[in-house]
């Protein structure tokens, strides 16, 4: 079948179409966004009527995917690693209920935090929930692993977690399509005792889940994604997922005949690992992410023959690369050239003409008058307000935290208690926090910097377009204190006055600072010009 040049993320999406999904659910998040975008743009997916609109957040996405699975059809749900924190309640309990139609959760981790606030490893979640985890090492394997994961999910009646990382998701290679399955017919689940997690049912389901673990491990033993590369000598390498590439790069380049056990399917194939461990006097464990299996295999008291991230053979944090592997394998490389001193850092910045710029300009003037520098902020382009020339914001923790942290800070006595949150982040996780503030009559000013898109991830549809005013009104913010401003230079004086007025109001006020994202506006103009 045909060959295409695809990002790892796109290979996952193509395979999902070929595996016969009926729907994909997701909230945008780097490096996972391109999976859903590929399906949204695919004419083939449209013809097949595959549902693909963005969800409000990862939890709603996961639950919708689970509902589709309940109905007997196959579904995929995608998110970045920290998104799984939001969806964790649904995910972990769905391992207890099990699934009906195949359900594959794709999580894109971001080691080195290229676009994230931490580098948590989703394989932990897979283990925590007792579900099978697939961790492909390259684009073709990502395609193959998705097809396999859907089969596996329907065979063992569990959700399957497919873990990818930035370096696979955002790297392009040639991928070959293999098969095309038709979608499942509507065939809803009738086994209520499985799906109603009342304690009596949940206890039984949980025991079933634990009992199936040995079968899952057996599947890992036989998996085509796990294999041994034979070699000689008394040292061996166990390479997990993408890290296999760096191992093989060093192995080929320096002609090291070192044996390698590659693992891309979990739970751990215990027999294969035991056999490999017993053969060699020193084992290097290479994992892209946390040293999860290194810690397990090292055990207590510590097995000294296990080397890896924990003993400094490899760096403890960040993504790996072929150079780290060469060093860990004791290869002498020529001294590397340094970056010339003349090179300055070039951090990202808010675009010229961006509405957040005008908002921060106004806000900085007002904050100066209060001699306060506490602005609680959130996750999005406006987080760049942390950098010069604005340096307006004080916090960025997790989606929606600006609203509730401002509320808590207000409770503690900070005045003004200000939150800056984007429109998409507000509908993702800010609404419930605002309800808390309303119910508590907190003295907070929530500024929704509304550019009517999910801008940081490339301009995906935002869930709250034209609804923000009514959402705030509906949960009880007084109408007089829901203000709208247009962040433009010409409106600076007026905007300063409105911000000041609302800071002085002893209750919940919301300022919607509304102007289209400059990037989206440009794209829309291009589209219009074409028509």
């Amino acid at each position, binding site marked *: 079948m045909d060959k295409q040049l695809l990002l790892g993320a796109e290979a996952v999406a193509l395979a999902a179409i070929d595996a016969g999904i009926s729907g994909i659910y997701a909230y945008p998040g780097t490096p996972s966004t391109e999976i859903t975008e590929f399906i949204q743009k695919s004419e083939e997916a449209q013809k097949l009527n595959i549902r693909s609109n963005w969800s409000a957040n990862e939890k709603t996405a996961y639950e919708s995917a689970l509902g589709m699975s309940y109905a007997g059809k196959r579904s995929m749900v995608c998110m970045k690693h920290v998104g799984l924190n939001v969806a964790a309640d649904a995910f972990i309990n769905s391992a207890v209920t099990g699934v009906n139609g195949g359900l594959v959760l794709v999580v894109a981790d971001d080691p080195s935090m290229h*676009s994230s606030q931490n580098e948590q490893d989703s394989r932990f979640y897979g283990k925590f929930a007792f579900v099978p985890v697939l961790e492909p090492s390259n684009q073709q394997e990502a395609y193959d692993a998705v097809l396999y994961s859907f089969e596996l999910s329907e065979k063992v009646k569990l959700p399957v977690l497919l873990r990818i990382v930035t370096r696979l998701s955002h790297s392009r290679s040639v991928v070959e399509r293999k098969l095309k399955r038709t979608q499942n017919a509507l065939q809803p689940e009738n086994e209520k005792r499985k799906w109603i997690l009342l304690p009596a049912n949940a206890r039984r389901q949980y025991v079933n889940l634990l009992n199936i673990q040995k079968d899952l491990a057996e599947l890992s033993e036989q998996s085509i994604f796990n294999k041994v590369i034979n070699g000689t000598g008394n040292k061996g390498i166990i390479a997990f997922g993408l890290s296999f590439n760096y191992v093989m790069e060093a192995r080929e380049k320096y002609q090291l005949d070192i044996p390698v056990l590659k693992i891309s399917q979990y739970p751990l194939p215990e027999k294969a690992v035991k056999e490999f461990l017993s053969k060699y006097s020193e084992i290097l464990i290479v994992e892209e992410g946390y040293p999860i299996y290194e810690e397990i295999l090292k055990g207590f008291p510590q097995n000294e023959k296990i080397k890896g991230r924990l003993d400094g053979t490899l760096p403890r944090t960040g993504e790996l690369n072929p150079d780290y592997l060469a060093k860990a394998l004791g290869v002498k490389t020529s001294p590397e050239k340094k970056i010339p001193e003349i090179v300055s850092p070039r951090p990202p910045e808010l*675009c010229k003409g961006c509405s957040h710029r005008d908002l921060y300009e106004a806000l900085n003037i007002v904050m100066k008058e209060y001699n306060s520098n506490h602005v609680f902020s959130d996750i999005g382009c406006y987080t760049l307000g942390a950098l010069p020339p604005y340096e307006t914001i004080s916090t960025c923790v997790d989606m929606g935290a600006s609203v509730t942290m401002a509320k808590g800070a207000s409770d503690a006595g900070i005045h003004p208690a200000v939150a800056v949150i984007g429109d998409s982040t507000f509908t993702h996780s800010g609404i419930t926090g605002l309800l808390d503030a309303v119910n508590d009559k907190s003295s907070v000013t929530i500024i929704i910097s509304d550019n009517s898109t999910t801008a940081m991830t490339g301009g995906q549809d935002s869930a709250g377009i034209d609804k923000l005013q009514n959402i705030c009104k509906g949960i009880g913010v007084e109408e007089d204190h829901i203000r709208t401003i247009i962040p433009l230079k010409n409106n600076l004086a007026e905007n300063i006055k409105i911000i000041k007025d609302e800071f002085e109001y002893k209750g919940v006020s919301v300022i919607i600072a509304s102007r289209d994202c400059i990037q989206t506006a440009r794209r829309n103009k291009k589209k219009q010009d074409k028509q």
Partner: protein
Amino acid sequence: MNKNIILAGVGGQGILTIAAIIDLAAMNLGLKVKQAEVHGMSQRGGAVESHLRISDKEIFSDLIPKGEADLILSVEPMESLRYIPFLSKKGIIVTSVDPFINITPYPDLQNVLNEIKKNPENILVDAEKPAREAGSVKASNIVMLGAASPFTGIEKEELEKAIEKLFLPKGNETVQINLRAFNAGLNITKQLRK
């Protein structure tokens, strides 16, 4: 056949378009390709890079090891220097001399160019003028691709085919502009290397 290429620039300058053209040409030749790119936060005016690897044998790592790049193709002068640790001893820098100034202070341009010239193999290109002459200043990235094309290991004709295919959805005029830009870049290198 084995080429490691670092593409460098600032978010929004079009290095991913350069990458897409080389990728496509390589795939059409039946070669293996791996090309890691940067999405997300850095695309907002930050430094961006792409590691592009082409080979007739299996490629494992998506990232180029240090000291292994045959070519640094940069659409911005200072950015070409950021990836010096990746350049091999015999590697060449092909870079635009037009600075993208969104940081203060931006280093003295002449010093930047002098630093680039310390690398034995270098080609400095004023890409803006030929791009404008080709029909659009936006085609500066394709001028740079043309200038670097003799060092990609891929024939001119194959790259031209890929340019046609990639820009065709944007209309024939865009195709012609980019083909002209490509050849203008290539001619600059030919003149310098006579």
